[in-house]
């Protein structure tokens, strides 16, 4: 495929991605930090809904032979060490690599610093990569997927995952309905919303 066409497709897909991230409010620092402090579960809801949808889509596309899967190799040392550092970064940035751009689009100025920090981080890793890939971080197995371990076709495993996620989401939604989690300013700032409503309720009438 030509690079120009790939860029056009990427832009179009990115606009849809950014639109959905903005509408879901999952890009809000209040929702991401709120998730990591276990006060707000919108991030988990969006994430699991997207994983389940992707699993159903890929079960069909792969099951009918239209596409090959492209899982990443299982590098446990790198997955654990990298994942822990990445998670710490997500909490401090209040964003992940994709939602940083949604924050910039929505007008958060600090996200520009996150972006530049991210570019420096990627370049720093690039300099370190030849050395790091010789350590335990470069060691690992092949492209291992759970359905192969269980000895079932991928599409069956993917549909089981999607069904399990639906059950989890139904339970999550009945425990924590999503609307109150948005807050008054749809930014996941539940504490301010609660404080504002407390003020309205406890206001003392003038004489």
């Amino acid at each position, binding site marked *: 495929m030509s690079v120009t066409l790939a860029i056009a497709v990427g832009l179009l897909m*990115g606009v849809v991605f950014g639109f959905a991230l903005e509408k879901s409010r999952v890009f809000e620092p209040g929702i991401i930090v709120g998730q*990591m402090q276990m006060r707000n579960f919108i991030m988990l809801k969006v994430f699991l809904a997207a994983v389940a949808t992707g699993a159903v889509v890929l079960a069909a596309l792969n099951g009918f032979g239209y596409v090959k899967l492209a899982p990443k190799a299982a590098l446990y040392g790198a997955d654990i060490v990298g994942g822990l550092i990445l998670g710490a970064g997500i909490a401090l940035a209040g964003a992940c690599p994709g939602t940083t*751009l*949604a924050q910039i689009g929505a007008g958060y*100025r600090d996200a520009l*610093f996150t972006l530049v920090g991210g570019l420096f981080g990627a370049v720093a890793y690039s300099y370190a990569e030849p050395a790091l890939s010789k350590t335990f971080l470069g060691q690992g197995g092949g492209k291992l*997927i759970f359905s192969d371990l269980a000895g079932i076709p991928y599409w069956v495993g993917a549909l089981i995952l999607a069904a399990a996620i639906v059950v989890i989401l139904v339970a999550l939604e009945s425990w924590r309905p999503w609307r109150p989690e948005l807050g008054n300013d749809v930014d996941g700032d539940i504490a301010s919303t609660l404080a504002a409503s407390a003020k309205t309720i406890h206001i003392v009438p003038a004489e």
Partner: protein
Amino acid sequence: MLTQKAWSPYVAGIVIGLLQIPAFLIIETALGASSSYVTIGGLIASWFDPALLKIGYVARHVAINAKNWWQVALVGGIAVGAFVSMKMSGARRQAIAPIWQRALGSASPAKRYAVAFFGGFIMLFGARIADGCTSGHGLSGMAQLAVGSTVAVAAMFVGGIATATLVLRRI
């Protein structure tokens, strides 16, 4: 619907998940975001240090091919999509989200910018060690039932929860 301030997280999640269809059918790859930071960062850094391109990892990421630049366009498109969605709903954001004053215990923009820069730095350093982020390992890896991706996502949440609980203040 397009002018609403918020959608149900389930509807938005389904839209995001459906993006795997064009990704796999047209580009023959899965959704991802963090490689594009190597493409752009590596390209810019190579203007100052051309020797950087001798590192195979960098050369692979800055190469002009469909996958590399599709992802750069995808990530750039996210900013455009979020901007358009925001304008259509009429929502307005402050320069810094109000939660940061509580999370950092300081209203200083300089402190927030420094934390954002550091957070962004380790976010991408970690993502590149793990070979993927919330999109590549999370959305795509878990949907493909990848064992390594599931381990990476678990580690991300452990690192994120520990940091948000121990380093940041209650928001």
